[in-house]
């Protein structure tokens, strides 16, 4: 089994990085929708802007 990990270490590391990024993105999206904010939409919604100060 260790051989498997070592052979594919590149793939595994990158996959974990991607997975983390993916989950982070999802979490950010869900949090934003819950607060009723638009997430990084190309707009100037009051909600987006002034919530940054929170």
């Amino acid at each position, binding site marked *: 089994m260790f051989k498997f990990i070592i*052979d*594919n*270490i*590149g*793939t595994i*590391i*990158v*996959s974990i990085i*991607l997975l983390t*990024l*993916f989950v982070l*993105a*999802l979490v*950010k*999206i869900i949090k934003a*929708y819950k607060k*009723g904010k*638009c*997430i*990084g*939409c*190309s*707009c*100037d*919604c*009051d909600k*987006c*802007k*002034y919530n940054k*100060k929170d």
Partner: protein
Amino acid sequence: MSIKIGLVGNPNSGKTTLFNNLTGSMQYVGNWPGVTVEKKEGRLKNFKDAIVVDLPGIYSLSPYTLEEVVSRNFIINEKPDVIINIVDATNLERNLYLTTQVIELGIPVIIALNMIDIVEKKGDIFNIEKLKEITGCEVVEVSALKGKGTNEVAKKAIEVATKNDNCNRLFKFTDKVESIINGIEDLVKDTVPNDKLRFTAIKLLEKDEKIDVDLTNQTKLIIEDIVKKTEKDFDDDTESIITNERYSYIENIVKTLYLKKSIVKISISDKIDKVATNRWAAIPIFLVVMFLIYFLAVSTLGAMGTEWVNTVLFGEWIPDLAEKGLTAINSASWLNSLIIDGIIGGVGSVLGFLPQMAILFLLLALLEDVGYLSRIAFILDKVFRKFGLSGKSFIPMMIGTGCSIPGIMASRTIENENDRRITIMTTSFIPCGAKLPIIALVAGAMFNDSAIIAFSAYLLGITAVLISGIILKKFKAFRGKESPFIMELPSYHVPNFKNIAMHTWERIKSFVIKAGTIIFAAAVIIWFASNFSWSLRMVQMDESILASIGKIIQYIFVPLGFGDWKSAVATILGLVAKENVVNAFGILYNIGDVSQAGQEIWNVLPYTALSAYSFLVFNLLCAPCIAAIAAIKREIGSSKWMWITIGFQTALAYVLAITIYQMGLLFGGTFTVYTIPAMLLFVGLIYFIVRPTNKRIRLNEGVNNV
């Protein structure tokens, strides 16, 4: 203990600019009334523990418009420690009218006298000491645009707030009215706190319905009597009596405050207006201006930028780099596919349009900053009214060219319920920033970056708005009295480039963040769902999860010319974010540079020019992204209306797209099994537009007297 500072003033008085200066934030400064529809908070720079609240611009504290009620309620209920009343020195009478009312609220007020540099430049003289004397308030000179005076205002505000000693001098009415007010004060002084006594009494005299006070029935009757008697004595309603007295008083004091030395010349603003709002040239000029914007953004400058980003950055550099990196670590092929075909392919294709979007945002921001857009509302009002909207509906729509969501929120400034509803239901027809990649994609891949195609998308949006206005107005649910249209026309501004740059940068940043989150997540999901089957094995795209779903949905779109599973899926994904349409294209058609015209594209994408345009039409007009739908629900107030809106928009999109496609085929000599149904649908649409309005409904709408 936190100090709370309220910022109050007329629209266009420089309030939000002052707010930005005080808090260091970057709130959007629009150049027409109605940009600030909610209060905004920020921390006062350089002071510990003080918050500044920017309230919507108001002309008075009457109970009629949403902005006034929001401001009023904030001051009464949240009891700020001090109010900064920003007064535009070039527009004294109307600004001071508000000041007389704000002082009555019992909270210490300091005046920030803005634009005094313009007054002095004209050669006029302003007597600040006199203003201090008359109002009893501290007066600080500021030039919000230049950033001058900000620190002084902040210091004074904190001083007054901590001293908590109100030297504001109340505005006194004529003796007769004063005694009446005093009489009412006596009647209610037991139930009303001392500092609110005068304000309450005046509001009761004005028959203000939103004032919050506990009265016994007996007291109410006595007050009613007083009001009736007053109205009889003065031969006018009490609201008008009070308002008249305020203005008379102000007229007199302004003479002592402001010495006009300058000769009245035609201002530059007026000279520009002679052309911009010229009877014959105005609308053509507007169309030319919008066309130029799309020309620069999509076709010329924008296209060059996009081409570089797509062919070089995302076509060579990044994929090459990624490939090298991945081979170096000996990664699995599925991972390579995920990263290169999926993430880079998808997110890259969306980011590829950034140059075009940036230029569009920049030009629109310039247009807004200069003040041209309030002129358009003025010009187009009559046109809009024929279509069931008002000039005020134009504002949300222009905001919508950036993003529909603030546009939908800006509809709050429309008092008339029906007009507001129609505006909310049609705002997202105007192509927003997120739809630009789709437009640029079609224009670029099929029509050689044509500016006309891009501009036609914008015209299409406006047409859809106008048609919808006509159609909806014929239903009883939307009929009602016409709303008044009274709007200030602020003077043209020399564009403030810092403002424009900041504004554009904010939008670009938002776009990139969106790409990094939603688009990224969606790209991963799309890649997965299009490369794996239900049994979670890697397969060819045609056998994937996404394909199986798409193949069921695709039939809906066959009559429209794009009945293949990839187009169907891309359209549906557009519901999450409109950029996803391009995201999906980038991954499903496996090209990183879909926006480039070129023979390869023609071979790969299964579209004709006609079907591509039909696809564009449908995606532009159908229901907007979830975030916008959520905004629609919030502003329109009910789920029922939200569904009606979605249904209406999608139906209109469908009918227009099918008509364009089938009629297009017909002109080319091709007759299909859908030709007749398409014609029927189109005739149905025409019917809804031209049918006569029920006479009974029309008679019920009286003359315009509110």
